[in-house]
């Protein structure tokens, strides 16, 4: 395939997919280790009511208000889950199930009741994203990467996703030690004076930021899949946290690229004309990777086995 075709049509969606996958997989490592994997599931469900409310308030589908609305919804969900858990004395899983389904139902209802016919805002879009549409029309080939005029036409999502990824990487570097200790031994962390509750909430909020940014570009299926599958597969490969994180980054990248290629070009190879959902395919590939790791990963049984 020539650069003239690849760069405008596939390079940017692929890069956005990779950035989104890594941004979700990084906090996902800690969520999986802390047995909070389903927080990611809950957050990605409540993003829908968040953006619907943001749309109703501002009347536009601009990225800024959408992301703010989604982030606010994530915060509301986390607080509600904690409130219901404490007030009602019920286990976290059930509290989560109550919260995110109710918020999601509210989002769908609001969407149905409001006039969204002139804008592109629907449940399918929220679930599946529109990775394929994030193309770079100003590019004509590889040389466009050095052409400032063409670079100005890059999709906004690419820059936004890159910034969020950078932000998350920075946070992980800065809070590496407390985060690590609080994840593996909360009591010890407490004894050292590390504010474990704040670390926990910070992690969840970081996950929410990753989810919200990624959701805008790639839809919530990828978000949940990338929170859980690459870190889970990485966990089956190694006992060391640093190595696990590198594995998860590798798996996330592989899922994004392979998934995108299979979705875009796979159908052509077997003689069909239309591509399939890239978001769905990326999630599927990450699942295949996890399945392989579960069947053959060197540390799949854990330390005791």
């Amino acid at each position, binding site marked *: 395939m020539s650069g003239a075709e690849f760069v405008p049509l596939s390079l940017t969606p692929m890069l956005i997919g990779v950035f989104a996958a890594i941004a979700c997989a990084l906090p996902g490592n800690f969520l*999986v280790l802390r*047995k*909070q*994997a*389903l927080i*990611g*599931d809950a957050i990605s469900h409540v993003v829908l009511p968040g953006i619907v409310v943001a749309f109703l308030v501002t009347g536009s589908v601009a990225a800024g208000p959408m992301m703010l609305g989604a982030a606010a919804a994530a915060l509301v969900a986390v607080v509600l889950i904690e409130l*219901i858990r404490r*007030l*009602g*004395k*019920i*286990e976290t*899983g*059930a*509290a989560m*199930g*109550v919260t995110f*389904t*109710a918020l*999601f*139902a*509210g989002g*769908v*209802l609001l969407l*149905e*009741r409001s006039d969204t016919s002139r804008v592109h805002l629907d*449940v*399918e879009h929220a*679930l599946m994203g529109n990775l394929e549409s994030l193309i770079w029309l100003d590019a004509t080939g590889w040389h466009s990467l050095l052409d400032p005029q063409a670079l100005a036409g890059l999709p906004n999502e690419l820059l936004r996703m890159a910034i969020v990824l950078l932000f998350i990487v920075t946070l992980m570097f800065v809070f590496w030690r407390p985060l690590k200790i609080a994840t593996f031994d909360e009591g010890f962390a407490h004894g050292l004076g590390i504010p474990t509750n704040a670390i926990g909430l910070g992690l969840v909020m970081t996950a929410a930021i990753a989810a919200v940014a990624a959701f805008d570009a790639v839809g919530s*299926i*990828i978000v*949940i*899949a990338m*929170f*859980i*599958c690459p870190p*889970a597969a990485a*966990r*089956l490969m190694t006992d060391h946290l640093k190595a696990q994180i590198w594995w998860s980054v590798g798996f996330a990248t592989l899922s994004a690229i392979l998934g995108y290629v299979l*979705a875009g070009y796979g*159908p052509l190879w077997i003689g069909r*004309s*239309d*591509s*399939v*959902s890239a*978001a*769905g*395919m990326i*999630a*599927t590939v*990450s*699942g295949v990777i*996890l399945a392989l790791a*579960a069947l053959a*990963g060197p540390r*799949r*049984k*854990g330390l005791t086995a």
Partner: protein
Amino acid sequence: MLWQALTLQLGYNATLVTLGALLLGVAAGGTGTFLFLRKRALVSDAISHATLPGVGLAFLVMVALGGDGRNLAGLLFGSAITAWLGLLTVQWLNKHTRLSEDSAIGAVLSVFFGAGVVLLTVIQTMSQGRQAGLDSLLLGSTAGMLFSDAAMIAAGGAVVLALALLFRRPMTLVAFDANYAAANGLNVSRIDLLTMGLVLAVTVVGLKIVGLILIVALLIIPPVTARFWTDRAEEVWLISGAIGGAAGYLGAAISASAPNLPTGPIIVLVAFALFTVSLFFAPARGALSSVLRHRRFQRHVHRRQGLLALANGLPIYERYTMRLLSQEGLIRPDGVATKIGERQAASAMQDEHRWRLLREMPAHEDIAARYDGLSGLETILTKDQLRDLDAKLAEGKT
């Protein structure tokens, strides 16, 4: 309009949907109880998302065989197969790898759903698939429901309900204490599988009305709500079924009473409203009654300790205790006991003496265990026993 909907006078289709939703709600609430008590509520989320690839595959197979791809029975059959696969995957990952159940649930739900989305996009590009409307199963759709569809949903709900009734004892036992159940000769893993099978059946039956994303709400919210009203498992079961049924019935009726009110989300929101009311106001475990119970307990402790301090002639500094005692006219503003106060303090002191003596008597061992520093012994012992005790007390003093 709403009244007509509630009394089933809005026409054939609305009546079908409302009755179907009622049965579905009862079945989901009843079945969800075991899942909730087993602390595995979110497994249902994996099951429900895993139905999507099955729907797509069933459509493709039915079209390939030359049939109508939209046949609901066929679609539901396909969805049941992949949901079962998803469930087995969760259990396999949990058992054979170091991953915990929540990771397994999240992985299965996202991957199966992603694969389902891929299949849906394949179907959308097929010539037969354009009007398939399979995505209506994501959020449920009750518009233009056929009688055969409604009959199938009702029959499915009834079968699930009957099975749940039949096996409620072993399932409750396993949900509460799996080890005890195993020691009693029950096959725990088989009963777990039965519970999950019923959950799966509810999910599949509910796809048409509530949709696969929200069906978990009907499995989780009613039992959590019912738990606020009682501490007895059999009652949780009944109340949960009633709440599920009420949410289904009211939700479907409200949704039929005006346009643009999607059935699934309305049912979920009705259930959530019932949950919120119960969370605060349920008498058994609601937040309000907990607060009141706590306050009552606090008042008892302060009153008792205040009275004992009066009896011992100790000054009281604690503000709440002083306010409590002076409100009841037991002390004067300067902290000195009134006549009634002295009498009550003396009786509190006597009660403490009785308890102390009682604790030294092996014969009353079981009663002594009930000492909490609050309740008077006269509420526990008979008059004769009290007289004996007082006689012994008097002996001890002389």
